[in-house]
């Protein structure tokens, strides 16, 4: 084959505009999905982790409840639900979701930087944010599977009975995405220049674990900690899922949570995008993309 060079870029067969960008995004999604499938250990982890992680909290709650489970009644009064196990598993599942996004989306570009493939994708004429967005789409699919698997496993192994409108739960999931992934985008952009961010992941997930009440109601926190919790979207996500899935809350009851999540989502997506653009400019000045 003779690869006769085109004399100008426009003389070459190319798609243009939004359609071309969507094709590129689809290619990133396909690439990530194909690579994901080639690591069987990741798939196995998807099935094992949801069962194991909440187990420590559930067993602790049973131990603390005492032989007559009297302690659970006090917990139930504070938490506003009779399903303590369901309460814990929803908290832990949101924590695991944020944790996975921080590791997988947050380190998506860093992984490419380490492999050496970031520069070759970066030199294409495609929209560069698609590289991060495509990775996130795959992570969302993986998380959908993860949450689906978790729900089945919680029902089978822990006897949790979910009691709510599935559509409202799906809406809660969709409105949680911008906040959780916006933070992931912001994180991914910072990691490219910082190159080492494990400590920051531990900090963020620690904050979520303590301030957002993944296994306890935030009412038990000191006043200043409750104030901090109000500024974390995960607080509302956890609360909203519990209300939607355990207490059968109506749309009207959940509306304030949805509204707050829209505001947080817009904020974190804007922050994530702004930091990505900043990283893009900075990388051109410092050559950070090729460093590892």
């Amino acid at each position, binding site marked *: *084959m*003779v*690869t*006769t*060079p*085109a*004399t*100008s*870029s426009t003389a*070459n*067969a*190319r*798609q*243009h505009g939004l359609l*071309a960008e969507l*094709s*590129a995004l*689809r*290619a*990133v999604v*396909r*690439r990530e999905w*194909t*690579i994901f499938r*080639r*690591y069987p250990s990741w798939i196995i982890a998807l099935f094992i982790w949801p069962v194991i992680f909440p187990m420590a909290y559930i067993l602790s709650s049973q131990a603390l409840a005492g032989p007559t489970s009297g302690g659970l009644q006090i917990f139930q009064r504070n938490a506003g639900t009779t399903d303590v196990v369901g309460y814990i598993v929803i908290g832990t599942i949101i924590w695991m979701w944020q944790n996975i996004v921080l590791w997988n989306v947050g380190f998506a570009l860093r992984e490419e930087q380490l*492999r*050496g*493939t970031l*520069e*070759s*994708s*970066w*030199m*294409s*004429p*495609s929209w560069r944010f698609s590289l991060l967005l495509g990775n996130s789409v795959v992570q969302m699919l993986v998380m959908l599977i993860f949450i689906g698997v978790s729900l089945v496993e919680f029902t089978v192994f822990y006897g949790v009975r979910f009691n709510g409108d599935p559509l409202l739960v799906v809406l809660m999931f969709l409105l949680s995405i911008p906040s959780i992934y916006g933070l992931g985008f912001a994180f991914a952009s910072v990691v490219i220049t910082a190159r080492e961010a494990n400590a920051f992941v531990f900090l963020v997930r620690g904050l979520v674990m303590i301030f957002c009440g993944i296994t306890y109601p935030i009412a038990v926190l000191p006043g200043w900690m409750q104030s901090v919790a109000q500024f974390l979207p995960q607080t509302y996500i956890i609360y909203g899922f519990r209300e939607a899935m355990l207490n059968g809350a109506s749309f009207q009851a959940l509306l304030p949570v949805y509204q707050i999540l829209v505001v947080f989502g817009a904020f974190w997506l804007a922050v994530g995008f702004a930091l990505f653009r900043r990283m893009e400019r900075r*990388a*051109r*000045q*410092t*050559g950070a*993309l*090729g460093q590892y």
Partner: protein
Amino acid sequence: MNNWAIEAEQLIKRFPRRATPDSANGDNGPAGKTEPRTRWPFGRKKEPAAWFTAVDDVDLQIQQGEVFGLLGPNGAGKSTTIRMLCTLLEPTSGLARVNGFDVVKQSNQVRQSLGTVLAGERSIYWKLTARENLEYFAALFHIPAKVARCRIDDLLERMELTNRANDLVEKYSTGMKQRVAVARALLAQPPILLLDEPTLGLDPQAARRVRELVKELKAEGHTILLTTHYMEEADQLSDRIGIIDQGKVIALGTPAELKRRISQQDAIRLEVAGWQTEMAESLRQLPTVENVVPHYTGTDSLWEVNLLTANSRAVLPGIIDRLNTNGTRVVNMNVVQPTLEDVFIHLTGKALRD
């Protein structure tokens, strides 16, 4: 209007570097520059801003259809120059145009005009097959799927990868991975190719295959800028060569023109057992001897020593006398026509591999 495929004018790239005590005193490496200390208004000393100049005032004009070799040792500024031309890096100052497009203001058009092989085998996904890699990059370059399928089949055939196209790249040899990287660069049929050390780490056979490919691509009309620190490669492939050292292009011309610069001189290659450092100075004191560059071969305490002289016949007895002392001995010696390596030694006083 000119017809340069690649053009650079007074191109400079400086990187900020954390100040060290040495750099603050102005000792910032050969190509480094240090800005003067500044003070905050409240009397606190601001950390001195140290800068490393990786590319220093480079001017280049590469014609369409030309193979231009950028030859220099590691860290000379070759890759930084290429990264500026392919829009990965923004020049600190100066201008660069690729296919007539400004690398800063028209970066998207520049990327559409270029095929690049940077980082070689690491620039492709090892957990994908060759075909999956090419399909992915074709979509990133906005090539319609139907067109991409035909081109991918053709490129796989050309790179002799058809039989292994559906195997994971991680199972390929380094040479095969490099061929996938070259195929990726050719997907969009770009008029200009930037190849950064395309044969680095390849075995001789794989390197020869890549060099043949470069010749074929030139014959097809591609403009090629290749960087290398292998002087035979630059000599064999390039229509013109720019020798770069410490960020500056110190010589530019056809391989023949560059070698003519030292055509009045002979290059002497010696193999010496038991070389002692002070012998270099002793040889330099011989009349007409210059640029004595010793290099340890890594085997049997043997050193390779290169030197240039205007009169090898007159100087050879003196060289042997000065080396065959105190247990040191000359085990091999050749007088050869100067190569590009000798040109580099003549210009810089050091070998390319240093």
